[in-house]
């Protein structure tokens, strides 16, 4: 039941068409599948394999390499607490201990109500604002234990629903290429000539 929906199938075909080779669309499509159900199911992988012309095993082979893809349901909110150098120097460990106590789960675990999954994360590229965390890949910076408590309260009360979508939804904006503006992707073997603007003259 978790093959791509009609609507997502249209999107998927659009995405595939942007690449000179279909398989290149695999990671964007895996994100699409994860957006649909919060994780990537076997059926979704079979479907994606059909779409890009590889086996479902190859789809799993690619997907399992990347940390963001989940193959089992997780909490609605994935809280990733950074523990790399700068955050570690600025107290990330205490923050993690506090989070574990507050949520009643160890790092890697999901709360019983299915709301939160707590996880250790590696460098999130906000090192000057340490310690930092991400909730479904949305930043919270210079987080104190009190900040974390407030954040969890707000998430539970639904106050951040506008800002933070459920796990799986990454970018809320999609690239749209208007048909009349698109150059289009061509398989590399079909291109034999140099681009037209490389003729020693100005393009304008």
């Amino acid at each position, binding site marked *: 039941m978790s093959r791509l929906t009609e609507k997502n199938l249209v999107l998927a075909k659009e995405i595939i068409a942007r690449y000179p080779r279909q398989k290149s669309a695999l990671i964007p499509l895996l994100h699409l599948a994860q957006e649909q159900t919060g994780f990537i199911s076997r059926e979704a992988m079979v479907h994606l394999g059909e779409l890009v012309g590889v086996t479902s095993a190859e789809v799993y082979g690619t997907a399992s390499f990347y940390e963001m893809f989940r193959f089992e349901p997780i909490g609605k909110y994935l809280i990733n607490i950074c523990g790399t150098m700068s955050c570690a120097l600025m107290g990330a460990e205490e923050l993690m201990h506090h989070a574990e106590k507050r949520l009643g789960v160890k790092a890697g675990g999901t709360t019983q109500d299915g709301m939160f999954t707590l996880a250790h994360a590696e460098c999130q590229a906000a090192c000057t604002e340490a310690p930092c965390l991400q909730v479904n890949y949305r930043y919270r910076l210079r987080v104190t234990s009190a900040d974390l408590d407030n954040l969890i309260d707000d998430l539970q009360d639904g106050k951040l629903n506008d800002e933070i979508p459920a796990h799986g939804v990454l970018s809320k904006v999609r690239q749209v290429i208007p048909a009349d503006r698109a150059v289009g992707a061509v398989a590399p073997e079909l291109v034999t*000539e140099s681009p037209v603007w490389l003729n020693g003259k100005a393009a304008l």
Partner: protein
Amino acid sequence: MSTTFKHAPGFVSGDRPKIVTSRFEFADSFTIERYLATDGYKGLRAALSRPANEIHDDVKSATVLGRGGAGFPAGTKWGLTPQQVWPRYLVVNGDESEPGTYKDRLLMERDPHQLIEGCLIACYAAGLSQCFLYIRGEMALAQERVATALNEAYAAGYVGRNILGSKFSVDIILHWGAGAYVVGEETALIESLEGNRGMPRLKPPFFPAVNGLYGQPTIVNNVETLANLPWLLCNGVAAYTAIGTKTSPGTRMVAVSGHVKRPGVFEIINGTTTFRDLIFGEDFCGGIKNDNKLKAFVPGGGSAPWFTPDQLDLPFEASQIGPAGSMLGSGAVMVMDETTDIPAAALTLTHFYAHESCGKCTPCREGGTWLERILRRIVDGNGTDADLQQLLEVGAMICPGAFPHAANEKLGLTAVPFPYKMTTICFVGPSAFAPVHSALTLFRSEFESRVTKRVTIPVTAVVSKDHVLSSGAKS
């Protein structure tokens, strides 16, 4: 706790020349309206008004250095493509994840149009027929901002077919990663873009410019590198090279984090700004937190060997940092004060690289994990003195030969630049050892005080003279 990004948190403007962060002061810096009101897409127009090869020559003569870590000049890289092999592609490396580094994320979040314009200029100059903008998976806001900007740019005729009504046509495809540090390595990035596991490709060929995406010539450039191009085209080569030094012209973005009073991201003048300026300067971080003493600092991202306070006066100039035993890397300084637990600090970094190993090369996959395990038992108080030697031995196998170190006349050592030699395809493996080696050479006593001395009994003492060691042995 800040909940929105009205003003780029972390970024510190200061009174310095700006090339890539000139719009950061505006709350709406990421919109096309603001971009067009501040010289936006003028560089593209200037480029398209001249033949492509002239633009390539400009980038070459301006010596725009790659800002991703290796510092390879962009113009030279573009010139490595084989003659008459088409199509050629541009892949933008926005998979920023080196510990301590964040500049590309700000550039994508705060000024996505500048990056798009940079991509277009590169495609025009180097004859690249399609551009793939690979953004790290975890950066949701950057993805949203770049997607919005691309949609605006397509609608306004800056990207796509017949750009600005000219013969120049190129698509920019936004592509997200899904969480893997190693994908920042350019051949791994290409594998990932082809829909595979993001493992680095066997070298040679050393440059994707020769054989990259779909086996075609491919230019992989860092976000910051490309963000320099619009300014360069607007203001000319002379204005660009007037900033910084001859070998390192222009500016570069540097993130200073850790135990400093005012951590931040700065756009600094290349080649002349020193680490002392950055860490202690009033315009920058203003000294060490709580006025503590500086113990050590990482000069160029998690992979870089560490520096000590006596190296504070070194400038941001690759030709000086290399001989001093480290590297400038991706513009990330991490500062450790006197309260820092050095073995634990080394452990966090080594854990990072062990965790992020893709597993393709055995020395990195096994060695990184062992380094982490040994280091962890030392930090937990269960280490022995033999572990210190063990760390160095394991590390030497990931990066064999003399490990890069600074010149030390007293010890009779000449400088060995980093990296010296590798048994792995990419830098992840040797990077796991860099913090261990630095910590152990610079602060060995902190390790020694943590470990217990192991009493070893020589084998000869327990094997009696007439003991038969193996069934095949004859007495």
